[in-house]
């Protein structure tokens, strides 16, 4: 499955948003994404998780070339985004796709479902007229929607149906790379399960490589092989999803996993909790952005930013990584 050359690669990727200063407001800089390195192998399924506002969606847009990075490079099949000619871009668009969060807003309210699903086919000259409609219809059937959907408008569909349409449109060109940005977050849990099943089925069928951006750790486990946890624009922990879930080493990952609701009522309450909210200014200084909410923070965390250090096939950005193991969590619980 994994070939030598990753399908998608990012190095030192950063994106800064500046707000112009007003009469009373100073000019402010928000580091939405900073210093991101990632590799997505062919057929890879990478989950990006983190709280809202941590830069996951911005990262997805940068990787798809829908927003311009302030720093760093992105390579798709070894070609840098920054070196693409318009024709190269068009080819990239043909081979990549985006599935967005709110499926109603992601569909043009004035266009029929059929026209929207067929549009990429005609734009890229893959098919036109009746042939394009037929392919669109087949694409809808593949996501479990009937041909009667073709003539409908987005507002006539349910949320789950709309999300299937968005996925059908993303997959109609048989892309190599898909970014699912909170693709199931807006759906009911039962519908989420269906859409997750659908994504898995399509991944098997097409051999997709994808990024699955989500804040929901329960879902992510069912759709990804690897996970990258983001906090305030940076990756703080990454690795194979099973290993990370079994033994998270970064306090933030631990807290996220501890906060996942469990079905077992006898399961113990989370041992690690985080206080307050993520404050973007915490990412500006020299130290660790998470230190302001971290129960484990020490003096060094305020003065020196922890690098993302590799340990086998996983990596963590924490000075105290590894110290925070399972037995220690139990002790922390006793203390608190």
């Amino acid at each position, binding site marked *: 499955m994994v070939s030598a050359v990753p399908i998608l690669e990012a190095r030192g990727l950063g994106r800064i948003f500046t707000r112009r200063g007003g009469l009373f407001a100073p000019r402010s800089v928000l580091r939405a994404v900073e210093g991101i390195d990632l590799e997505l192998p062919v057929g890879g399924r990478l989950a990006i998780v983190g709280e809202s506002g941590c830069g996951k969606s911005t990262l997805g847009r940068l990787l798809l070339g*829908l927003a311009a990075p302030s720093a760093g490079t992105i390579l798709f099949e070894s070609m840098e985004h920054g070196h693409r000619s318009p024709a190269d871009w068009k080819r990239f668009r043909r081979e990549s796709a985006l599935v967005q969060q709110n499926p109603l*807003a*992601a569909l043009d309210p004035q266009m029929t479902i059929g026209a929207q699903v067929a549009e990429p086919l005609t734009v890229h000259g893959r098919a036109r007229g009746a042939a394009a409609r037929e392919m669109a219809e087949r694409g809808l059937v593949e996501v479990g929607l009937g041909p009667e959907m073709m003539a409908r408008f987005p507002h006539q569909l349910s949320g789950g149906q709309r999300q299937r349409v968005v996925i059908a449109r993303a997959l109609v060109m048989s892309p190599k790379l898909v970014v699912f940005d909170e693709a199931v977050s807006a759906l009911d849990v039962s519908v989420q399960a269906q859409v997750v099943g659908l994504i898995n089925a399509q991944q098997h069928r097409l051999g997709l490589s994808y990024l699955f951006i989500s804040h929901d750790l329960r879902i992510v486990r069912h759709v990804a092989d690897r996970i990258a946890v983001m906090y305030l624009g940076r990756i703080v922990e990454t690795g194979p999803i099973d290993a990370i879930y079994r033994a998270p080493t970064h306090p933030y990952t631990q807290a996220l996993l501890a906060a996942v609701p469990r079905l077992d009522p006898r399961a113990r309450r989370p041992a690690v909790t985080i206080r307050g909210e993520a404050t973007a200014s915490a990412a500006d200084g020299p130290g660790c952005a998470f230190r302001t909410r971290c129960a484990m923070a020490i003096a060094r965390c305020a003065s020196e930013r922890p690098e993302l250090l590799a340990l086998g096939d996983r990596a963590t950005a924490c000075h105290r990584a590894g110290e925070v193991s399972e037995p220690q969590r139990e002790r922390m619980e006793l203390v608190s």
Partner: protein
Amino acid sequence: MSRFLANRLLRALITLFLTVTFVFIVLRFSGDPAEQMLSPDATPEAMQAFRERWGLDRSILEQYLFYVRNIASGEFGFSYANGRPVIDVVTERIPKTLILTGAGLVTLILIGVPAGIAAALRRNTAADRITMSLAVGGYSIPSFLLGLALIYVFAVELRWLPSSGSGDWRHAVLPIATYGLAGAAGIARFTRSAMIEVLDQPYIRAAKAAGIAPIEIVFRHALPNASIPIVTMLGFNVAGLLGGAVLVETVFAWPGLGSGFVRAVSQGDLAVVQFMVLIFTAFMVSVNFTVDVLYAVLNPRIRLSDHGAH
């Protein structure tokens, strides 16, 4: 959609009926037409004869029923001022006004909508700021003042165009420009904000991610969706053009409904004023109805509302 349109049609008819009644009430209570039309030293017999001739001696209710019946049967009476049938006095002015407002509408759309689109696509650039400054300026200047300024520049100083009258096409240029520039300013601002709103929608990002060319995104996805609020705004503009006719036609001495209305009011020619108000109202009501129809055509949520959608 049929239910939506039937509903709007019923509303339009009710508006017309209320206007008919309102016009009657206001005009009957705004003074004695006999005193206004005849000279102050007219004899009581002459006044009486005038009232009898126009049916002003009957009870208000009788006059009202008579009036409604006449309107319903297309009888609008005669001008108090010159005895000609009101319908002739007014209808000969209608084409004059329609030429100006129609051409004015086309001009304001042709200038305002592209300017707004261009500004939205170049948001926060110098081109955007210049366009919007011009638009705010154009929006702020009263139309009659703009008309006078155009007369001064193009008729008085440059002597390219006539300042007033309605002989040939050259007379129409300045009034049309007045309507077009004043209206374009508002529509440009509105088009810009409507386009910006739509361009920020996720389905535009989806279209971009699908590799659809920017120009196609604008004309196939953004503009059709922005056109719903723009069409609504254009409806107000048409209403504004008709209202503005009172000023603009007077400035350019253009013999349309607007200047005719000013004349009829100043002469106290009740029968003419009454009919003109009805004509204006009918225009407004049909513009509103047209906007509603377009709205339904453009918006599938309304168009398909009878088919069991949520």
